[in-house]
């Protein structure tokens, strides 16, 4: 591996070291009877089958800690951003806090579970997952969706609202990683390597545009082109189709009166600040009024004016309450997550894991960058959530599960139970210890218990 690596140094935090320095064990042995493992419901055979051969090497604790810290931070920010809205609409200031806290707990457990599943097993699950995602998207588009504002983006299952677009993003990454690794060198061919992927993603994108969810469609296309590029598709195909897609997007904006108006209003925000550009304008106002160090947690006042402050525009509230320092910290956290993800991609056992890890990292990176850009009105309003922070169960759970997959890939592998016929050099152990050492060295958020 060409990735520069630190030499193993004695860990400074003894607590972290004892927890992290797990001696690799045979993967067929179920995890030692730690409480959570024992308490797991063994109801579904799929889950037990998945867990049966879990690799038990240590995960990337820096990544895990950062993600958990962000989720916890998100709960606090959601409370701060939603208290007024919750009081007005639900007569309960903690309305969104309570829900987000539950989602957070469920998500962290979900992440833990997923991290224990050998990611290689997703290869077989690729098509079932794609089928479910397609069904959900179609379900929403044909009119069973739950409406919020002008968009039908949700499926209501009792009190739980699932946003298929979030699931679709992860689904497409899973499928692309599978497909690209399977096609290997044939990726260079136009009809085998390029067109099928574009057709599938194009179909998804059209479904998303129907909702309408312009932002998610764009994210899907970015993910696709990214992975195609990484896997070695010909650059001029990608260049040509990116240009085509861009033209298509321009066409969509220009000839959809509603979008074009939004665009014009966005370009001339000053004059439309009371109606169409109200949201982006309020968002920048909110973002900017934080100044260098912010107004203080819970002291932000723009929540009174900024609609959806706790979902898509939570970064504006962070900007207001925690200021430039807060945004800097937030950016650093995302950079850390993405760079750990890319590191995992580079060090992955196989190309499937590598594509998967890189796709997920790109997903986190693109979403957080876009969300911040929207909050500063660099981009027009997109309706994209801020990963791990925005209020919303499906977004949080999907992102946490994606992080879980990353963690799973990060596990060193001493034994390869069912990874196909390829024989691998057993080089994981030093890599794992290096990771642990790095994490202890950086001392990021304690790296507890993972």
């Amino acid at each position, binding site marked *: 591996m060409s990735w520069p690596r630190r030499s193993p140094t004695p860990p400074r935090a003894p607590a972290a070291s004892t927890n992290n320095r797990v001696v690799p064990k045979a993967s067929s042995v179920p995890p030692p009877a730690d409480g959570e493992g024992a308490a797991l419901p063994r109801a579904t055979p799929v889950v037990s089958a998945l867990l049966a051969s879990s690799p038990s090497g240590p995960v990337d604790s820096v990544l895990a800690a950062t993600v958990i810290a962000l989720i916890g931070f998100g709960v606090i920010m959601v409370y701060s951003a939603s208290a007024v809205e919750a009081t007005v609409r639900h007569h309960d200031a903690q309305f969104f806090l309570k829900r987000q806290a539950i989602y957070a707990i469920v998500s962290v457990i979900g992440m833990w579970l997923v991290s224990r599943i050998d990611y290689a097993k997703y290869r077989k699950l690729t098509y079932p997952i794609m089928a479910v995602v397609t069904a959900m998207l179609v379900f929403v588009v044909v009119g069973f969706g739950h409406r919020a504002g002008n968009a039908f983006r949700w499926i209501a299952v009792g009190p739980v609202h699932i946003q298929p677009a979030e699931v679709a993003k992860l689904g497409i990454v899973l499928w692309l990683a599978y497909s690209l690794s399977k096609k290997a060198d044939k990726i260079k061919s136009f009809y085998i390597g390029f067109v099928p992927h574009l057709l599938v993603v194009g179909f998804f994108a059209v479904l998303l545009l129907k909702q309408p969810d312009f932002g998610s469609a764009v994210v899907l296309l970015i993910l696709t082109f990214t992975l195609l590029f990484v896997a070695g598709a010909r650059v001029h195909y990608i260049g040509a189709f990116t240009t085509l897609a861009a033209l298509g997007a321009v066409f969509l904006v220009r000839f959809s009166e509603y979008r074009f108006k939004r665009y014009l209003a966005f370009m001339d925000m000053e004059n439309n600040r009371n109606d169409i550009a109200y949201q982006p304008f309020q968002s*920048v106002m909110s973002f*900017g009024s934080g100044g260098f160090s912010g107004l203080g947690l819970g002291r932000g006042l723009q929540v*009174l004016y900024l609609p959806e402050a706790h979902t898509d525009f939570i970064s504006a509230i962070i900007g207001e309450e925690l200021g430039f320092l807060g945004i800097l910290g937030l950016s650093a956290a995302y950079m850390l997550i993405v760079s750990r993800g890319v590191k995992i991609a580079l060090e992955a056992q196989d190309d499937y894991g590598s594509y998967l890890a890189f796709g997920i990292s790109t997903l986190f990176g693109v979403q957080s960058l876009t969300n911040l850009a929207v909050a500063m009105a660099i981009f027009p309003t997109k309706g994209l959530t801020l990963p791990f922070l925005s209020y919303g169960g499906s977004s949080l759970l999907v992102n946490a599960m994606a992080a879980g997959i990353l963690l799973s890939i990060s596990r060193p592998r001493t034994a390869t139970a069912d990874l196909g016929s390829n024989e691998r050099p057993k080089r994981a152990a030093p890599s794992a210890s290096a990771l642990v050492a790095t994490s202890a060295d950086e001392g990021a958020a304690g790296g507890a218990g993972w």
Partner: protein
Amino acid sequence: MKNLDPERARWIKIRMGMLCGLMGLGLGGIVSGAYHVQVDDGDEWFELAERQRQRRLHIQPKRGTIYDRNGAPLAESVEVPSVSLDAVEMLRGIDPKYLPMKIQQYSARVAEALNMPVEDVADKLTRRRRFAWLKRRVSEDEVQKVRELSDRTQRYPLAGLTIEGEGHRFYPNRELAGPLLGFVSPDGDGREGLELSLEHELKGHASEVHGLRDRAGRLLFSEGVEDEQALAGHNVYLTIDKGIQFTAERELEAAMKTYEAIGGSIVAVDPATGEILAMASSPGYNPNDYGAADPDARRNRAVADRFEPGSSMKVFMMASALAAKSVDPNATIYAENGTMAIDNVVIHDTHVSKWLTPTQCLSISSNICAAKIALGLGESRLYEGLRRFGFGDQSGIPFPGESAGVLRPRGRPWVQVETANAAYGQGISVTTLQLAMAMSAVANNGRLLEPLLVKRVNDGTGVTLSEASPHIRRDVVPAATAQLVSEMLVSVTEGEGTGVEAAIPGFRVAGKTGTAQKIDPTTGKYTDAHYIASFVGFVPVEKPRITIAVVLDEPVGGTHAGGSVSAPVFRRVGEMALRYLGVMPRGSVPMKLADLSKKAEAGDTAANTYQVMGEAKVAAAPAAGVVTPSAPMRAGEARVPDFAGWPAREAVKAAMGLGLTPTVEGTGRLTHQEPPAGAVLPKGAAVKLVFEPST
């Protein structure tokens, strides 16, 4: 990627590295963008946000009430609901495709509820403002309908409609003292009359507070919430006595009708203090409906209009001459048999006479005699004398638009004939108020006082902030001279005097008539068709309690002389006012209530007044159920209202408000009261209130 050949794996990593670089660039862009927005422009955004939040609220503190001297409200503020619209809120989340249709639909619903044109509502909706008044001063019915429209439990509730209370000025006595009180604009600014001149007191000081509003425009909280009472405007107690004002207006109105005059005014003053007890101007108007009133009717003629006073001025000329000792009170002056030429002008007397004393000169109102005395006094001393009585000068009354009158219209000393004219009130102009104040100086031992209109100012919590006290402008003439002139003026209302019509039985009345020809504006010459008839006097002479000036503009029909047109008005108003003030006629025993009521049955106007006022009050009572305290009979007396069916708390409150001492029995609603409704009791007297729970 150990499953791939190293060359391919290397390329994959290189490509990943390139994409990471791109993302890194993106992050750099975001961070620098954040630095720009937050650190570079942060202060500006903060300012902007602050301005949006702290929308300055013009909270109108409750405007103070104007009371008469006995605490009867003349102008009060009541909260009237108004409906405002937040168009952005109302149209939130509507597909632009359906926007025009929805606007039509919503406007129709709102317009129907508020009884206003659909186009107006649609117009306001289309503009998409966060705040616009839809309709101000809506009725209870409309409020109910708006509530139903925005009721969230119904099928299609409308958002963005707000009902807010807005202060509305209400004049419970309608026309009473209209031109004096003035009115208040819909925005709460005093526009005319006392509402304008007392703006500072009535409006209250803390008229602006900072409040925090959310995007729905709801007031969240304000910094340093202040006591509402402290914010409220001050309550002003005028020197006006509602009873005397009522009488003055009624009598003025009657005279206006009888003589078909185009205008008139009455000023009644307490000569000892300068307090104005009544100030009537006719035609008047109802300030509750000022929009419909003729601007001419809104003018307070007693203060704003100047006119040539005629013979009334002889009083002040005479006082000046006597003070200057240029004429002996016992002298006899030759009256030239009714015609005298000065320079090239011939002046006439109505009563042709030969020799007259100064007293007779006043009582029969001889112009020739007055001219001779004035010429004896001399131009400069006459001018100075009249100035000292307050003519040609503003009186200092706190009222907007006061006219000063003009003594030297040409801006130079009078020539001989002008001096003679000035002696009997020609070629100069004065106001009714000036006449009343100058006459009060004669009544008040030669002391000219500043007219007072505001007796007391209380803040919202009832603490007295200022109390007016008499203010002496100057000693115009020695007390002896003033008393001498007073005695001379009694002759005007006795025997052969021109003002016998002003005599009040049982009192000695001092006064002077005035009948001035008006100048025809087209020819610039005096006409024989248009006159100003005036009477100014005070009563009783021994210890003057009230000075009344009555001026009628262009009376027609049979007579136009001040003695026959204005003097009777003086008598009737004076007679009533003396009873109000509790002044007993000479050598008479106090009148019993029983006698009064007998007189009332016999049709005595003065005694009837209470009755009439009571009726007027009922007629003027606002529909909205604003409780106006009953007008006290006299200072220190109160009429027991009909409490039947009232809840205990309110009955007790009302009784205490009248200065009565309630004793309470039982709970619930009032079933019995003692004494019965309508009884007149001195303040502090006990009222027994019996309550029973309603079934």
